[in-house]
């Protein structure tokens, strides 16, 4: 099939970008979306043009590197799917497809579709861990964790850090990302001890990175490839309010 692509091209962090049109023929339905871009890039090389830069790595939906706005939606038209898992059978022959980077003030564009998501690392650095150094651990079965609690913690911990939640949020809020980590750790007895300090620091860092407020539109949950629940945002708020109320 043939597609008409409109792709965001931008040279540097500071430069102004623009949508550029490309026609791509010979796309097969079982190609993944990124393989379709590979095909386009292969042709651009033949023509001597600079390729379209985009982040990608595992191509099986777990590393969280790929991520772009496809036809105005984070990771494209399907819910609960990363860009690499999106296949061309989701598009129609002759369709125009708009491809843009994830946009947020905290996610500056590096080039074309590549963005800088280091803000997420900074949020984790601010407190997204259990302070357990190697060698300190007690025997693993000495910490009992109910089956359902472990499963709930896993649901939150499954976040791949792709940034779709921020990209699809009208306020570019990182509440889902931050709350998933807070929830993951506070649910477990190992992480509970530091929870008050953690939530205060992580929320502070989230703000310092320039993310917006959460308006509870719940768009993030729909676009999250791991279908992480917005209820974690409620839990983050609960933990935060508790920490505010109880801290000395």
């Amino acid at each position, binding site marked *: 099939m043939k597609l008409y692509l*409109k792709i*965001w091209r931008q040279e540097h962090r500071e430069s102004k970008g623009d*949508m550029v049109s490309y026609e791509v023929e010979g796309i097969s339905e079982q190609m993944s979306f990124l393989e379709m871009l590979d095909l386009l890039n292969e042709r651009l090389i033949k023509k001597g043009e600079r390729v379209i830069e985009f982040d990608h790595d595992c191509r099986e939906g777990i590393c969280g590197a790929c991520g772009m*706005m496809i*036809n*105005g*939606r*984070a990771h494209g038209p399907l*819910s609960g799917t990363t860009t690499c898992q999106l296949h061309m059978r989701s598009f129609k022959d002759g369709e125009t497809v*708009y491809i*843009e980077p994830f*946009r*947020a*003030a*905290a*996610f*500056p*564009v590096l080039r074309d579709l590549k963005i800088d998501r280091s803000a997420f690392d900074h949020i984790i650095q601010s407190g997204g861990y259990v302070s357990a150094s190697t060698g300190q651990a007690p025997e693993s079965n000495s910490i009992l964790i109910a089956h359902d609690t472990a499963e709930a913690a896993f649901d939150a911990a499954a976040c791949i850090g792709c940034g779709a939640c921020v990209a*699809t949020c*009208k*306020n*570019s*809020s990182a509440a889902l990302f931050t709350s998933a980590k807070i929830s993951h750790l506070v649910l477990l007895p190992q992480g509970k001890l530091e929870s008050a300090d953690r939530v205060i620091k992580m*929320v*502070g860092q*989230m*703000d310092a990175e*320039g*993310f*917006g*407020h*959460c*308006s*509870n*539109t*719940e*768009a993030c949950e*729909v*676009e999250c490839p791991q279908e992480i629940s*917005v*209820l*974690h*945002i*409620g*839990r983050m*708020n*609960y*933990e*935060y*309010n*508790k920490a*505010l109320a109880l801290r000395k």
Partner: protein
Amino acid sequence: MKQTTLIYKLVMATTGLFLCFFLIIHLLGNLQLLSPPELAREQFNWYSHLLSGNILIKIISYVLYLSLIAHAVYALIITRVNIKAQGSKYVYDKRSKVSSWNSRNMGILGTIILIFLIIHFKDYWYVYKFGNLPLDAKGNKDLYTIVITSFQQGWYVILYELSFIALGFHLLHGFFSASRTLGLYHRKYAVAIRVVGWIYSLAITLGFMLIPIYIYFNLNS
């Protein structure tokens, strides 16, 4: 203390919920307008007088004014931060497909409500407080007549009805959103709050909407 995004949201939630509570009282008071005209006049005017005299009510009313102002001012600040957080705009944006319209447009709905409130305050609150109103049989200021007269005008009824619709959508998202901001995360109770939110919003909206229509069609002299 540093004002984080969550603290801003907390202010929005608590002031919002207080306003929600006030709406119940306000509606209950207004429902008196649906009584037979003479009884309604007497009761409504007495009730209005009660609200302006009591010291407890006075304190609550100051909290109310403060809540209203804080809710609006914080909304403005939050909106500014959010616009800044967005950075550059999407050229092609279909994000609206994955969330409800009212949840995305609380600002617009809020603005409509604010404009409505200005009119509403000017026409009743200001008139009652500072205007020269005739007295009714019991010697209370006759606000009833002012209300009934104003809802004789079709355009005024439409203005109110539209504002109430905006209020309804605002409440529908606001009520549950506030509960989340306050930290409700349990799945079961989150669902319950949604249901309560729906019932509350519908009751408030339909209740308020009923009154102007009732007056327009039943008390048109």
